[in-house]
């Protein structure tokens, strides 16, 4: 372990000798100008469409046709207030939340149970079980959507939140198990032995020790599951026919085909649909990004 120390010392020496020389400084400034330029351009391309959508919702149709750039003049509130006062928006919001909640609870609980034994128990066929689950990463619901419709129909779950939540949870299992396994594995064996001495069976250890200790990992997979379910489009498109059961992505799409000529109303409705996702992102960003970052550093 002597090497990093030497390197660090060497760096200090170099820094002292070279000092903040003028040439270095110029190059550094040029470098940061370039960097900020690129980053600013990318930021603009990300932000402008969203801001454009939100602002366009405050225009009426003639305004939007005449001048879609700049601030609305006058500000028209009816596109937003109409959407907010329509029952359909709130119904779709609720449907999306119900489906996302159901599928997240199912996928996290089921995946945690399976990942626990795959990570920490010795049994014949363990690697096979893991491989079978990971193979699922290759089967998105798209590939199986025709038979899935028939299956869900035969189960009597068409136009039912469970008809969406269960397939979503099933297709979410591979990723969830893959993320949870290393976390579960990293919890010291001694803890399990100590718990066993105190008379704690596998189930007790799982619920009372493993799950509480793995909270960060569980939050990460839950966040991923919520985002996946919230944005799911193909399953609702196929499984739902009654407008009262539509989720937001389906509702927004249908709204946009229904009012093709009234662009302002479409963008207002679409902007409203973005709000919950972005709000959730702001709250859960650390779990989402931190989960990825933390997991990868941990290795």
């Amino acid at each position, binding site marked *: 372990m002597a090497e990093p120390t030497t*390197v*660090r010392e060497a*760096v200090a020496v170099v820094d002292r000798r070279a000092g903040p020389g003028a040439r270095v400084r110029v190059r550094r400034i040029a470098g940061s100008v370039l*960097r900020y330029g690129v*980053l600013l351009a*990318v*930021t603009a391309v*990300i932000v402008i*469409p969203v801001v454009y959508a939100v602002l366009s919702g405050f225009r009426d149709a003639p305004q939007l046709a005449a001048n*879609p750039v700049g601030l609305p003049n006058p500000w028209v509130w009816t596109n937003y207030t109409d959407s907010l006062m329509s029952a359909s928006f709130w119904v779709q919001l609720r449907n999306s939340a119900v489906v996302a909640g159901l599928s997240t609870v*199912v996928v996290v609980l089921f*995946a945690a*149970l399976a990942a626990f*034994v795959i990570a920490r*128990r*010795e*049994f*014949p*066929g*363990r690697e096979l*079980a893991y491989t*079978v689950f990971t193979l*699922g990463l290759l*089967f998105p619901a*798209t*590939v*199986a*959507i*025709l*038979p*899935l*419709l028939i*299956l869900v129909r035969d189960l009597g779950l068409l136009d039912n939140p469970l008809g969406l939540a269960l*397939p979503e*949870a*099933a*297709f979410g299992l591979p990723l969830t198990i*893959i*993320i949870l396994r*290393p976390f579960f594995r990293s919890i010291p064996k001694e803890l399990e032995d100590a718990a066993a001495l105190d008379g704690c069976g*596998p189930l007790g250890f799982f619920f009372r020790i493993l799950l509480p200790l793995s909270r960060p990992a569980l939050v990460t997979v839950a966040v991923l599951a919520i985002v996946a379910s919230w*944005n799911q*489009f193909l399953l609702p498109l196929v499984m739902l026919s009654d407008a009262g059961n539509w989720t937001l*992505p389906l509702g*927004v*799409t249908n709204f*946009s085909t229904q009012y093709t000529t009234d662009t302002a109303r479409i*963008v207002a409705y679409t902007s409203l649909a*973005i709000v919950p*996702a*972005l709000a*959730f*992102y702001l709250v859960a*960003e650390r779990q*989402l990004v931190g989960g*990825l970052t933390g997991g*990868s*550093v*941990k*290795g």
Partner: protein
Amino acid sequence: MATDVGSSSRTGRNLRAWGVAGLFMLPALALYALFVLFPIVQAARFSLFDWNGLEALDKFIGLANFERALADPVFLGAVSHNAFIVILSLAVQIPFALGLALMLNRKFRGRAILRLIFFAPYVIAEVITAIVWSLLLQPNGLAEHLLTAIGLEDAYSPWLADTDTVLIALFFIITWKYFGFHMILLLAGLQGIPREIEEAAAIDGASRWQGIRYVTLPLLGPTIRVSVFLSIIGSLQLFDLVWVTTRGGPVNFSNTMAVYMFDRGFVRFQFGYGSAVAVILFLICFVLALAYQRWVLRRDTEGATTYG
């Protein structure tokens, strides 16, 4: 586990271990078997029939659906469009995400907020992205007005409605939505590389570029390979975005395999034929993934990145 045990008691312990493991895995296995494995087997079965999804499943036609798909220029076109998107993703999107990850891997003011913004499109639904961008790119939309405002009105054309540009326009929207995801993955990988190694290279006289080329990138290899893999699989299964923006048009020029399958299966009620297309899509993904696993990912030990 190191204690000596007789073979009979080992069998007993195996059985018990299996019993406990089986009980814990039962819910996940049951859900997985019912909603993932069974439908895939069913798709393979349906693909051998001429079936509209409603009548009895009794018109067995062997591999005729597959022959039909492989002879259909529209389907082959869809395959080539998927391939085009895969190639663009690897050649443009991943290097772009990598460049940004390298920029964001240094400490500077505003770094956290930029990361927040760049990753944000990932949480916006693909259909919502599709609607916003269609409106933005349509005639008399924001793109045309902005170009006119800076005197480039000739540069505008309705890209999504033009057979020559529709795929590139779609790829642009895909990149808008997904580069942040790859950037975050790569950034995570970069942060796992000890600073000391890069500093050592700098001391040995490597320029910043050489440091990146010969030190950072090789060390980032496992993460890049995962990113490439996810990008390939995602591009092959592209559906939502295309369905909402173009429905595969104009004249099939933006058809993807998934859009073609959905159109034949659900719009034209050719369930048997749609299933055959699904099976082909599945096989393409499967073979590519196995090959990738075998030749590329194999040297990376598990756990090198979160999504290994």
